[in-house]
């Protein structure tokens, strides 16, 4: 982490006094895959647009490859971008769309052809050169957008929810393609998403945001096993971490909230459990069943059981857990210890 390829230092963007993003500091080395994650309206797209130069920061410094680009236009930042809507030019063919930037930069025709062919090969679009975007499927359009980003051969590629317009199945395969692409080309990718599965499975560094501020920056494991605060704990993981009021647990009264992941919960024999809950719902997922539990001083308690389980609603269930699996949060929701 010593080499800072991208270095964002304390930037902020405000719209008419309304909060855009505030106090964003972030740096990562070359070749990393960074995911900006968060619920909608959290400022992740704004952060990406500030980095791209499509928006100007009101405060702070952005450095790319050691160069201060804070006041530079997008074209001087040596980056490419994939838009959520793909932003393909509807009247141009696939080929013209891909080489648009090369034409703008007046790349020689021969080089242009070579780069085009390579980009089309990488994205599996050979044979579609002369189609227009309207004649392509959603997945193919997405690949054209990728090809357009690749062809520029920029070291940094920004992606703004590139998979959100695809169906679930396609999303899975394109996700793998993008990751493979990033590794093979050795480029640095900053990827905006609201889907934690995408962020956790692709990224080396996940940046979780909320209300215009970074909540936690770290590897997917760090976010999962060491959440900075209750928001992170509840956002990451499926099902999310359960939060129990400290006063409901014997011996942990001094903590405001205690968190526990569902996989660390076990069903206990009658009288041996640490918490007595009521079954509120059963969600069958094939190999396992999630059983939702309710308790007056806990929320999000879910326990997973193998196979099909049909437990009546309202049935009492005792659960147990080990102390080392607990996460502790103070009154403000921040992690303690």
């Amino acid at each position, binding site marked *: 982490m010593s080499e800072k390829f991208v270095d964002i230092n304390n930037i902020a963007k405000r719209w008419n006094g309304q909060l855009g993003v505030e106090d964003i500091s972030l740096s990562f080395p070359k070749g990393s895959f960074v995911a900006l994650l968060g619920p909608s309206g959290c400022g992740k797209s704004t952060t990406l647009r500030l980095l791209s130069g499509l928006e100007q920061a009101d405060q702070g410094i952005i450095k790319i490859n050691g160069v201060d680009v804070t006041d530079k*236009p997008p074209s001087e930042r040596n980056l490419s*971008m994939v*838009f959520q*809507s793909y*932003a393909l030019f509807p*009247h141009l063919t696939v080929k013209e769309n891909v080489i*648009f*930037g090369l034409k*703008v930069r007046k790349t020689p025709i021969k080089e242009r052809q070579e780069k085009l062919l390579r980009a089309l090969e990488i994205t599996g679009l050979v044979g579609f050169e002369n189609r227009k975007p309207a004649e392509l499927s959603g997945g193919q359009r997405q690949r054209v957008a990728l090809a*357009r980003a690749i062809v520029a051969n920029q070291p940094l590629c920004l992606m703004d929810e590139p998979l959100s317009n695809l169906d679930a199945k396609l999303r899975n395969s394109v996700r793998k393609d993008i990751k493979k692409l990033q590794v093979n080309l050795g480029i640095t990718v900053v990827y905006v998403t609201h889907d934690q599965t995408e962020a956790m499975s692709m990224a080396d560094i996940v940046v979780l945001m909320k209300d215009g501020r970074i909540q936690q920056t770290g590897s997917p494991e760090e976010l999962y096993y060491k959440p900075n605060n209750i928001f992170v704990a509840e956002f990451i993981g499926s099902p999310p971490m359960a939060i129990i009021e400290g006063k409901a647990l014997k011996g942990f009264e001094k903590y405001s909230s205690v968190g526990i992941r569902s996989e660390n919960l076990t069903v206990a024999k009658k009288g041996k459990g640490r918490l007595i809950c009521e079954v509120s719902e059963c969600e069958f997922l094939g190999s396992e069943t999630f059983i939702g539990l309710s308790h007056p001083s806990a929320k999000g308690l879910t326990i997973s059981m193998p196979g099909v389980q049909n437990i009546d609603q309202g049935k009492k269930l005792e659960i147990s857990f080990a102390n080392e699996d607990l996460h502790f949060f103070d009154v403000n929701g921040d992690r303690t210890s």
Partner: protein
Amino acid sequence: MLRLKKMSQRQSIYGWLLLSPAMILLTTFAFYPSMATFWSSLFSRGTRRKPSKFIGTDNYTDLFADPTFWKVLTNNLIYAGATIPISIVIALSMALWANSKIPARSFIRTAYFTPTVLPMIAAANLWLFFYTPGFGVLDQIGSLFGLPSVNWLGQPETALFSIIVVTIWKEAGFFMIFYLAALQTIPEDLKEAADIEGTSRWYYTRRIVLPLLMPTTLFILVNALINSVKLIDHLFILTKGGPNDASKLLLYYIWEMAFAFFDAPHAAATTILVLAALGIIAGIKFTILDKRTHYQ
């Protein structure tokens, strides 16, 4: 088999029923009048002594031999050749400007659009006041710089030009509205995608905006073309086609023939010629131009 036949019969009856309202209206108000006009253009002008009789294409030969017809035709070609491109270019420039982030944007849009809501007669009266020699606005401004008084509408060299200016002034704001609407359908992120590549404003306009505006341009082109034949209201106020036919346009010429000189057959013949010319242009539009235009 029989049932199938019956069904297709029934379907064709439905088809005709659905077609009939449009067909009846078009027949009554478009096809029949055109045919009747064509038919009457083949007859001589009837007077009390000489009843009208079939004379074939004589009316057309007369027209082609008439220098006034050629003068009027040339006028109309100049009129169309000037008003169509100039009003489109002005409309497009105004739209591009009024679409950018400028202060008082809605005021500018309204200002541009005002000439459109004005009736042509009112607009013509306004311009009459501009053009009047001596105390007209143009002369007043000219006199500030010591320029001599010009009778814009009263001399053959400037009359047609003055009419053209009024038409452009009237049309450009109207066309701008269409361009503005079309510009707003172009997604913002296309511009952003181009910005990332470092596209210059001019290159973006030429390679992306103009092609995407092509359907609108085509629509405006057709409208401007129709107007160049149809819009003659201001002639009645400003020049009455004069002086010496210098500003006479085809439709005014037809009107004059039919209702001032009561020469219906020649007017019919001229009408047929105009219809034929417009028909050919419509054909070109539907075959060649439509294929080269990207419709979203």
